């Protein structure tokens, strides 16, 4: 166990202390919590109202415009799908490779995954011209004898994302079961009954643990490839269309790297305030953040390489459409030049500061650079989606798109939706995996329990 202790100081000294620390957050919330929750709900309602207006009057009250038919909605969709990657990566892949630093952060990041995918799932519906027909995207028998177009990347999306969501949610829930049982044991009344149902009769017997670990390993193995597949499929939404600036084989790996980058950055951004609020420094601390930052650093490098390759190929192909897009996109005086250079700064330059151990272990620099990376990843999607469309093939159709207040409202609303779930989750379920934390505590000697 010595290897585990090296980076992780301040570990709780007993199982009981761990239980107490985590369960403490279930107690009556304070004003700060409610303020946060209300802010999130207000944002969500605001977004909902914008959506209501959009349904009533049509997409025309959003900013999308010919030929830029995908704007903020798809940008945000890809953004949230990307965010949704880190959780499963951390919990499943790191579980499979027995990387123990995951224990402190995996629960929160899994929750983030599930809620991020839930948020992302809003957008394909939300961006539809006729969102009330969203059920058409599922293959179901009907008297019209109509079927789906299985050649369409959007249909692949439906399958990829719904699979990913299902598996992530189940994996998340499976991991929660022993902890819910602890909550059940420490609660009473109606709350206890709810937790009883959710705990699925968990009693921590040897036999249960045996099956449990097999199941957990199975789901981890099932979820791991999905991490790679989902964003690859999402990238095909773009790479399969002939649009210059999208039509590139580099997209799948580049998307996956970007997703992991943004996901890890988002975990940092979410966990730091959470840990501060719940005073969980014992369980989640610089050691974890630093590991996440290292992940970001790696994926940022991959992203930078991908950006360079895009430009190299654009130039090397001598294809006027490719060149047109890439050079225009990067032209600082052009319409989206600011977005491009903001993206380069956020995704390629800012993470470089984490090369320095001092900055990598400083909470403020961690938090700020992670926030910058999140902005940068949104800008990245904005960049390639919007600029490729605004300067499509035919110069006579070029038209510049900017989001308007409806789209910004829905963007805010989606954040509200995400944080509403996340904040509610923090108060109702353990955001740190108690049982796994306990694994890191040296086995208790007799009489030391409680």
């Amino acid at each position, binding site marked *: 166990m010595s290897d585990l202790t090296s980076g992780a100081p301040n570990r709780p000294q007993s199982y009981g202390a761990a239980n107490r620390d985590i369960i403490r957050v279930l107690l009556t919330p304070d004003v700060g919590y409610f303020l946060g929750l209300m802010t999130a709900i207000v944002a969500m309602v605001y977004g909902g109202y914008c959506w209501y207006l959009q349904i009533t009057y049509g*997409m025309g009250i959003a900013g999308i415009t010919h030929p830029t038919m995908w704007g903020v909605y798809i940008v945000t969709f890809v953004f949230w799908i990307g965010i949704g990657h880190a959780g499963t990566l951390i919990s499943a892949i790191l579980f499979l490779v027995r990387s123990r630093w995951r224990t402190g952060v995996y629960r929160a990041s899994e929750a983030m995954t599930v809620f991020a995918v839930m948020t992302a799932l809003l957008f394909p519906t939300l961006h539809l011209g006729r969102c009330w027909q969203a059920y058409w995207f599922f293959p179901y028998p009907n008297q019209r004898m109509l079927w789906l177009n299985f050649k369409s990347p959007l249909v692949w999306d439906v399958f990829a994302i719904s699979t990913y969501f299902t598996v992530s949610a189940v994996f998340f829930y499976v991991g929660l079961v022993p902890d819910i049982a602890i909550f059940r044991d420490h609660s009473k009344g109606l709350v206890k009954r709810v937790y009883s149902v959710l705990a699925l009769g968990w009693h921590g017997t040897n036999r249960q643990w045996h099956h449990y670990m097999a199941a957990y390993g199975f789901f981890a193995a099932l979820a791991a490839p999905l991490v790679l597949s989902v964003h690859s499929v999402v990238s095909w939404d773009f790479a399969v269309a002939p649009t210059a600036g999208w039509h590139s084989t580099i997209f799948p790996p580049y998307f996956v790297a970007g997703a992991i980058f943004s996901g890890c950055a988002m975990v940092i951004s979410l966990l730091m305030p959470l840990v501060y609020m719940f005073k969980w420094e014992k369980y989640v601390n610089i050691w974890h953040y630093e590991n996440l930052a290292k992940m970001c650093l790696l994926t940022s490098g991959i992203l930078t390489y991908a950006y360079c390759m895009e430009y190299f190929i654009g130039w090397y192909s001598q294809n006027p459409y490719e060149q047109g897009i890439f050079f225009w996109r990067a032209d600082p005086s052009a319409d989206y030049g600011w977005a491009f250079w903001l993206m380069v700064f956020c995704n390629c330059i800012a993470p470089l500061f984490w090369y320095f151990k001092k900055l990598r272990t400083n909470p403020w620099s961690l938090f700020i650079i992670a926030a910058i990376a999140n902005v940068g990843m949104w800008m990245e999607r904005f960049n390639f989606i919007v600029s490729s469309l605004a300067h499509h093939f*035919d110069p006579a159709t070029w038209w510049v798109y900017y989001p308007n207040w409806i789209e910004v409202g829905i963007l805010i609303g989606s954040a509200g939706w995400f944080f509403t779930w996340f904040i509610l989750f923090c108060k109702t379920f353990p955001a740190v995996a108690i049982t796994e934390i306990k694994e890191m505590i040296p086995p208790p000697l007799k009489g030391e329990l409680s």
Partner: protein
Amino acid sequence: MNRRNFLQALGVSGGVSTLAACGIDDNRYYTPIEQILPYVVRPEQITPGMPTYFATCIGTGPNAYPALAVHREGRVINVGANTRAPADNAIPVSSFMELQRHYSPDRVKQPTADGQAISWEDGQKKLTDAVQAARSGGKKVVYLGAYQTGAFAQLMDGFTGGNNVHWEALGRDAEATAANQLFGSPALPFYNIAKAHYVLSFGAEFLGGSWGGAWSQSAFSHARDRDDGQFVARYSLVAPMRSQSGANADDWYAATPGSEAQVALAVAKLVAEAKHYSGPATKLVAGADVAAAAAAAGIDAAAIEEMAKHFAANPALALPGGVSGQSGSATELAAAVYALNIVSGHNLMTSGGYAGQVSSFADLEALVADMKAGKVGVLLIDDADPVHSLPGGDFAEAMGSVGLTVSVSSHVSETSAICNVTLPSSDVFEDWGHEEPLLGFHIIRQPAMTPLNDTRSLGDVVLATWRAVDAANAPAGSWHDAVKAFALANLFNTPAPAVVEDAVEDAVEVVPVTVEGEVVEEAIVDDGGAAFVTWWAKVLADGAYVSPAYGNKVALALTGGITFAPAVMAGAGELFLHVYEHAHTGDGRFANQPWAQELPDPLTGQVWDSWVLMHPETAKSLGVEDNSLVSLTTDAGTIEIGVEMAPYIRKDVVAVAFGQGRTTASGRYAENCGRNVVDLLAATKGAHGALALQQAKVSAKSAGKPAELVNTFSWEDGDDNRGFAVVANHKDYEKHGDDAQHDGGEFTNMHFPKLDKRLNESGIAGFYPEPDHPTYRFALTVDTDKCTGCGACAVACYAENNLPIVGKQKVREGREMGWIRVNRYLKGDEIHFVPMMCQHCGHAPCESVCPVLATYHTIDGLNAMVYNRCAGTRYCSNACPFSQRKFNYHTYAWPEPFNLQLNPDVVTRTMGVMEKCTFCVQRIRRVKSAYKDAHGFTSVVPEEALGQLVACAEACPSQALTFGNHNNETSTTRTSRKSGRNYFPLEDLNLYPAVNYLAKVSFHVEHAAHGGGHGGAEASHDAPAHEPTENHEPAHKPAGH
């Protein structure tokens, strides 16, 4: 609750909600229940559900055209060219504006007096009393209207005693005056553009504007078409700017405004010398001075020699100035052009043009003087709007001194708003009439539907009034009888000439005769017998009648002379003010038609506004740029207007389109669209009495704030070598033409590199297999050399396919819905029009990405779009390399009664669905059905029924678009792909589009370099004979060959 209970609860609630979703609906029918309202007595000619075509006449005076009005269930839904009329199947873009004007919500719906609605009886009585009073008081009864001929002009002549003023703001009175002075008759000459190898225009809007309209467009298309005469007509323009017609010129000699007459005369002198002319026109051209003309025009003397060289060499034709040449010396310009045509001896200018009354500005001035002097008792104002468009601005004041001003137009205008009485007349789709746009070419107008509002035929109103005041001399019968009587007296028994072109047989059956309930045989005023009845029925069915005078065109004999006086440009400004015709609103009469406003201006892409065109360097020197507001000041006034920078205008000229800047009085759509350039003009006349529109110097200064222009052509600098606008060398084209002996795309180098022979041997023809379509593969050929940018295709598409109008604000947001757009690409000051629509790709990127199969390929090779399967992901639009899919951002409604114009065969789309060009699938369906009925179920529609089937191809006056079945080896769409001019935009994407383009023929491009691949466009543009991009100095243009 244990788990089992929980699951049960879940199951029950789920079941209930499912049941609710299925809908417990008492009403088992669609809601709302629709009604069927059958006829009480069904008119014989009309089959509900099928279109009935009425041959009729659209437009008046020289711009009258034989047309078909498409009638469905009691209303006119579309117009088309009349294929049975013995003339080119061409109708101008304004016919569609006329159609929309017919359904305008701002039409006058009933008679009014001083703004109060009155009954027709009261209105008729007011008119009768006023005419009675005028006659007894010795005052005049005057009719003021647009150019009109034939039966109506005759009727009005009789009624007013010759006090008719036929005046148009952008009229042709200078030409008429010059003709009167030189030839002794005010009849306009006929210009045989189709036979010209060289057309030298001094600014005439003859390719889409009001000057020559659809027929000259069609004629020029023939002149340009090598197959029609083994030559490519070269078109040179002498004008301060390239207008829509001027954009098509091969050479542009940028002369200063007002100098055109001198240039024309100088060319005439040189041509006379070259042709050793010694006839009577010698004295006309003797005074010309080439050097002085060049200096006045600001062009090289060499340029004038160049023009003369071309003019003398081949059959050539000079065209007068139209609006562009309407300076103080407009009459001189017309005379100089006549002289030029005469001395050249090419004999392409003959008698036989418009012979109707063309009132001069002097006539109008006399009328105003009479009005002010109280000599006018009754003023009937038809489709003329002097209050808006007459410089000087005292017409409204003069109207106050008239006994009774009566607006007899069915459309509102600034003038009608201040008339005492409004007696709305039926418009062209509701009335009888007769026009003679060319000498001997008679078009009969018949009603195509019952009047929409409580309107009456103006002819009937006049007849009734006449009979009330002067029963002895007034003709009996109705206006319909009067038209027939006119035909009987003037047309019947005049043998038709032999030169009638073969009427193209059409799948469409033209239904003869009259409106419902009316029987042909009755009420013939002066009995012509049964022969007349038969003849009349045939003329109505044909829509037109050609009398011997039409074929009898002779050279014009010079009988008089004219003094040449230079034009004077008044004012202290440093820039010339150039007034030109708005491409779609005409002289402003269509300003209230949303189609005219929303269709992008062909040159600038501007919508719903007016703007001042200026050269970028001029703008720079003023410190302004696109969409800056500037104030223009002349001696007559000041307007503030937005800037549109354009390289196709002289640096010392700014140009403003005529016809915008209407007030609320002209209707809700015209309101606040742009500024009225007339505010900058004074009532200046030339030496021969013509009104000068090009009269002023203007000073411009920045107003320091942006204007609110909406420019839909977002890209200024050309097509960036992407191969959308491609040119071919004219020598290649003249030598080889469109024959199939050469590889497709040879002249453009836009063809795809050939595949390896070994691949061909193994049967591999391309990257993808050719799409397999057993019977039809519908295809379209677009000849960009013939396209003049007039926009008829685009507006025909609006009319046929129920495209909504979205208004200025939504266009600013990029949401116009046009399925075709005539894209304009600039290369320096050269302008290239390319109509773009859905290309119906054989391997369409949009189809594979649609998740719900709302778009797919039909077995006929159409890229189909099923609106009600569309969920609105808009992925197809992103995937479409041509960006030709349009999204319904909203559910648009049609303000009544625009909805009556909607085509019942095409559904109107609701919000959230994609739409795009369907190749008019409803017409394809109909023609297939007709052929199945006539020739059996497995019959294939032949090529001749397809050529102009789609609305855009039918509407194109230049025949630039040809539709057809690609599976047919002999179809134009098939053979044109083997043309040396053939190209496909974005061919390297392997889309196998159904639309192919033919390159524009240029006189300024060397042979296409024979490199490989798609880079040919660059090769074509790299070596122009002159370099317009680097040298905007028009004086040195062009070097030519």
